[in-house]
């Protein structure tokens, strides 16, 4: 972002994927740009930059948020988990396998956001129907797959985690 506060910088400290980080950052830098450019965590993608596409979805203090709608300085003192962190912890290993098996990605641009949102769905108490999955995922855009395969993959994992066979 360029603008009036370009030269103003602040030092922030936050935990990213479990690791304590202290960095100086321009006050108007978006969290997603901070994660990608300063920390090299390029798993989080930037699509629309106004909250609509979901490609930049990450977890802040246990809740999923759009990292394009937060400034890096607002994450000071927060616990941030990106798709790299979700991968390292093994929380979404089954989901990632299901995405591959169901062909739920083509170009892969939307995938990190899809995984982060799907992880949220699977951690919630919501009903496991396809309609519920579609509704929950409706804030994430995919320009390739047509969504069917993504819903298939999430449904597989929901069933497997509930101890049911996949159809």
């Amino acid at each position, binding site marked *: 972002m360029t603008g*009036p506060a370009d030269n103003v910088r602040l030092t922030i400290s936050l935990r990213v994927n479990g690791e304590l980080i202290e960095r100086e950052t321009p006050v108007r830098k978006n969290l997603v740009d901070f994660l990608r450019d300063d920390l090299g965590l390029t798993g989080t993608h930037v699509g629309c*930059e106004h*909250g609509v596409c979901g490609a930049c979805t990450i977890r802040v203090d246990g*809740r*999923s948020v759009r990292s*394009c709608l*937060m400034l890096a*300085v607002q994450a000071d003192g927060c616990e941030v988990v990106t798709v790299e962190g979700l991968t390292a912890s093994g929380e979404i290993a089954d989901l990632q396998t299901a995405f591959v098996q169901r062909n739920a990605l083509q170009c892969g641009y939307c995938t990190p956001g899809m995984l982060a949102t799907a992880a949220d769905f699977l951690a919630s108490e919501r009903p496991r129907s396809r309609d519920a999955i579609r509704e929950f995922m409706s*804030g*994430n855009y995919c320009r390739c797959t047509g969504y069917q395969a993504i819903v298939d993959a999430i449904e597989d994992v929901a069933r497997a985690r509930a101890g049911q066979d996949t159809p």
Partner: protein
Amino acid sequence: MPMLNMRVSSPAALIDINRIETLRGIEDRPDCVRVGAMTRYVELQESAVIRAHVPLLAMALPLVAHVAIRNRGTIGGSLCLSDPAAETPACCVAAQAQIVLAGPSGCRTVAAEDFAIGLYETERQPDEILVEVLFPKAVSGRIFFVDEFSRRKGDFAIVGLAGSIRDKGSTVNDPRLVFFGSDNRPILAHAAAAAIDGRPWSDAVRQAASESLDDDLDPMDSIHASANYRRRLAKVLLSRVITRALAS
């Protein structure tokens, strides 16, 4: 943030109010429910106090955007932004909420009904901050409703309707109808309400309500929907919502 990202706005100073604790929280007071401006949608959605005393808001929240947006978006932000299609400001009008603003010369209270004055324009002066919203507690014996037409689940409404009627069998009683998405701000539909108040919900009354709505609404034209289309949808919505409310 979208306004900053799209360079629509580039203010010299930006104040982060996230850490002002007194702007947060849902409080069950004897005479009202107090909601701090920084209270997030997700907190409202998870609140038993809101479910019990401001049922209309509880019903509307699932219609607002998506989980990741509701995890960050606040009631104060929504009211101050004053998007004409937003559900929350319309529910505040329908629920007869009071909005508390603080400025250099102290606090003042504005009825939600008078708060939005134009497209993205509110009563709030540039040197004022929205502090809290006070909701009168819902009285028993009223039926609340909110519904909307949107292109996809979670999208802003093309036209929406929030409100309530008194529970009186098959007769419409004391309706309060607030349309959003149609005009440049939430509209309290006085004429349509007068046309149906105290009447049985017959085809003739339904027709009269539809016609009166033309006096209440002055729908916007946009790439998403023409004014005529919005007017038509508002009528369909009114008919459906009242029919459903009476059947409940």
